[in-house]
């Protein structure tokens, strides 16, 4: 038991504006994030639009090459995208997308699409691939009789199952699920979340679950990191973060989440102002412009993640002790 399966150290991603005459600063989507996912562990990443959570997912998969820091998978630094080593590694990682419509090719049969991974990475015969495909379809709750059908014949929930089957066809160790249930109706959401939980347990998958929906993360994940404007605000075991949210942003986020049960509701904290531009983030703590606990010293240095309460629970706020 050496290090966790996926380790990101101070990983950073800037997108430069394109074109010869393009002006403007680069957008720093992810700014110095540490994250680890152990074998069999599910790590939740929550945040709102512009928090960099999807970019982080693609960095950990190596689909994007980080502009700073390092990502290691199974003890090895991620190879350059497009290289032979990188392509071979694809068999060990999978991705599930948010949009159940755009993520499947409308012009190819679902069987061919789910089979792609096997065709690329194995030397199995067509019959053997077929057998594995059938098994995978049953596993995700789809009818293997319909391998020859096209995506438009399936509902949103079924398409997400297809997306999951495609990602898992090569039996990967690590799965990134990028808002896989956000586009689904609530009655379907629960089906897909349940499927993901089962697969994780049965296959021993390590999973990065990206979501803006806190309650879903709570049910599915072991640990969670909360992101705001490319940085981690808080991280820790889900139970602890949900029971004792310690960063002002986490609290605002939790209080804003509508809850069925009045007993669970926190006092609503409305964030003042507008989210700052990612091309020009505030100095020091990026959340300070909307934080009611902000002090002048918050503008000075980027607050480091510090242990708070327990070893696993860490908060990036210099005033965490005072305000909690």
């Amino acid at each position, binding site marked *: 038991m050496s290090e966790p399966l996926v380790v990101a150290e101070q990983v950073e991603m800037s997108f430069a504006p394109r074109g010869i005459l393009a002006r403007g600063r680069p957008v720093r989507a992810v700014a110095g994030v540490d994250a680890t996912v152990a074998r069999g562990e599910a790590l939740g990443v929550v945040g709102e639009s512009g928090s960099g959570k999807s970019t982080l997912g693609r960095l950990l998969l190596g689909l994007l090459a980080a502009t700073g820091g390092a990502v290691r998978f199974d003890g090895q630094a991620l190879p350059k995208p497009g290289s032979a080593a990188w392509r071979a590694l694809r068999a060990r990682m999978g*991705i599930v997308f948010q949009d159940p419509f755009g993520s499947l090719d409308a012009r190819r049969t679902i069987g061919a699409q789910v089979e792609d991974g096997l065709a690329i990475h194995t030397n199995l015969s067509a019959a053997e691939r077929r057998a594995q495909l059938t098994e995978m379809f049953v596993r995700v709750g789809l009818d293997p009789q319909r391998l020859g059908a096209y995506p438009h014949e399936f509902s949103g929930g079924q398409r997400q199952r297809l997306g999951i089957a495609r990602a898992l066809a090569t039996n990967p160790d690590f799965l990134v699920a990028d808002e896989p249930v956000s586009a689904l109706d609530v009655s379907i959401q629960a089906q897909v979340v*349940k499927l993901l939980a089962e697969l994780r347990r049965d296959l021993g998958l390590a999973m990065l679950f990206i979501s803006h929906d806190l309650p879903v993360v709570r049910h599915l994940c072991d640990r969670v990191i909360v992101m705001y404007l490319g940085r981690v605000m808080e991280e820790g075991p889900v139970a602890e973060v949900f029971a004792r949210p310690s960063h002002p942003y986490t609290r605002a986020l939790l209080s804003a989440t509508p809850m069925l049960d009045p007993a669970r509701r926190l006092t609503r904290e409305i964030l003042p*102002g507008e989210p700052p531009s990612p091309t020009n983030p505030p100095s020091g703590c990026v959340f300070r412009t909307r934080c009611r606990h902000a002090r002048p010293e918050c503008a000075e240095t980027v607050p480091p993640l510090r242990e708070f309460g327990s070893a696993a629970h860490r908060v990036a706020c210099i005033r965490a002790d005072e305000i909690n």
Partner: protein
Amino acid sequence: MRRLWFPAAIVGLIVLIAALAPLLPLMDPVRQDVANRLAAYVPGSPMGRDEFGRDVMSRLIWGARSSLAVAFASAAIAAVIGTALGLLGGWFRGLVEVLAIRGADVVLCFPPVLLALLVVTLLGPGTGTLILVLSVLYLPGFIRVSFAEVLSARGQDFVEAVRALGARTPRILLRTVLPNIAGPVLVQVSLAVASAVVLESGLSFLGLGVVPPTPSWGLMIRGARATMEQAPMLLLWPCLALTITILAMNLLCDAVRDVADKRGGGGAPKLRLVDRLLPGLFPAPAAPQPLLDVQGLTVEIAVPGGIIRPVDDLGFRLDAGRTLAIVGESGSGKSMAATAIMGLLPPAARVAAGVARLDGEDLLRMPEDARRKLRGGAMAMVFQDPMSSLNPVHRVGDQVAEAIRAHREVPAAQASAEAVALLKRVGIADPERRARAYPHELSGGMRQRVMIAMAIANKPRLLIADEPTTALDVTVQAAILDLLAELRREEGMGLVLITHSLGVVAEVAEDVVVMYAAQVVERGPVDQVFARPLHPYTRALLAAVPDGDAEPEGIPGVVPRPDRWPPGCRFAPRCAFATAACETPPPLEEVQGQAVRCVRWRELSA
């Protein structure tokens, strides 16, 4: 498909005749016979002879051959080279992109005929020159189309999915990208062929294209001009041939484009002609009069093969100053119901039955002009997507002012000032400056505030908000919901909130209507319904919400399509408690301020 078939047959016929020209029993198209100059009819020449006594019909057919050969050859060359360049440029970007795209831009700087004439000056006229010029001219079209398509395909999740699986670039380009850009490229091919025929004939007409004596339609028209008074038919035949060919090709282009654009869509819903609906029974409104009283609202849409009913017998009442939520999953008909009440149904849909009384006046039966005066006045609506719901080309202040001036005679300056005040009212900081902004310059939350400002501009008594926070982040959602609640309280509006989020309902609404497959399945005060749901669907929906400590449970199956509704209880196929009794349509029963549409509710809640 019928639109594709007809022009395709004509084009196919023309191509076939042209291709078979050497095999047809035709006279030699270049053999002159001065004795029969301009003869209207000579045995063996049904269309007569031209100014050199050559057979017109034979020249027409051989002319088609040279036109089409030039057109297809140049379109094919341009398609192969252009698509390859566009594909590589779009995939690899960098230098390939710069060369391909800038090269295309440069060709596009020249008006086509002028570029052709320049090359003809240098190389002299002839078929080879024509093919060279035309392929260069159509190259940019193929480069641009395939480049743009590759760029958009690159951004698609399904392409990233294949990349994430570790496929090699050639595999991605050939298996995934090429099939998805094949449609637009095919459209471009048909456009290039049609336009090459036009250009070839034009240049030949000027005497700078095909070299005589090779027959060509353009040359024939050129020659016939001199004798148009003696022999007008000589002019009309090639004109007709050319026009019909181009017309058929253009129609084929349109049809190909239509077919290519349809990306693997599902077949149109088909259903058997169902019996016409019985007119609803409308009980007299009970006193005291509610602000909004909807009864028996039914919306129908005619689709190929029948009629679907996306809203079926909807009823609810809303008192002034209260909030009613309509909750349901996609396809439940909740948004359609709201647009019906506002009189904003899309053209294909119509209200088939029901009443919707605003302060006692039936909105559904009033003349459109009267209803227009109420819209934006006494009743207003906020939509889901604040980006597309604002007009991108007008300043937001003007759009709010416009709402004011639609209902009140106020000078423009005053309306603008009021608009700024409204923006301030809905919590927009620096309203004077924001009023001059365009929608794309605002954040999603601010846009929705602008929509709300517009809606409350004339102090409406009823505000319908259709998924007003679905497109927004949760912290922004909280702020918008707070704003709506505050406005409702302070202005005494009635608020109908349409949402799919039960959490939002629980936090904001007093009464709730739960819809499933176009029908109300349960209705009542929120506290009561959520604490003691009577309908199995409401129960299942609540159990699917991941808020609590219990694992959320999904509902098996999916909402049926509107043309495939089960004959009895529409939820029965997904219901854990369904029995044989559920095969007949259950009525909506009223119990202690709650209403439920389930035959087994009594035993299930016992």
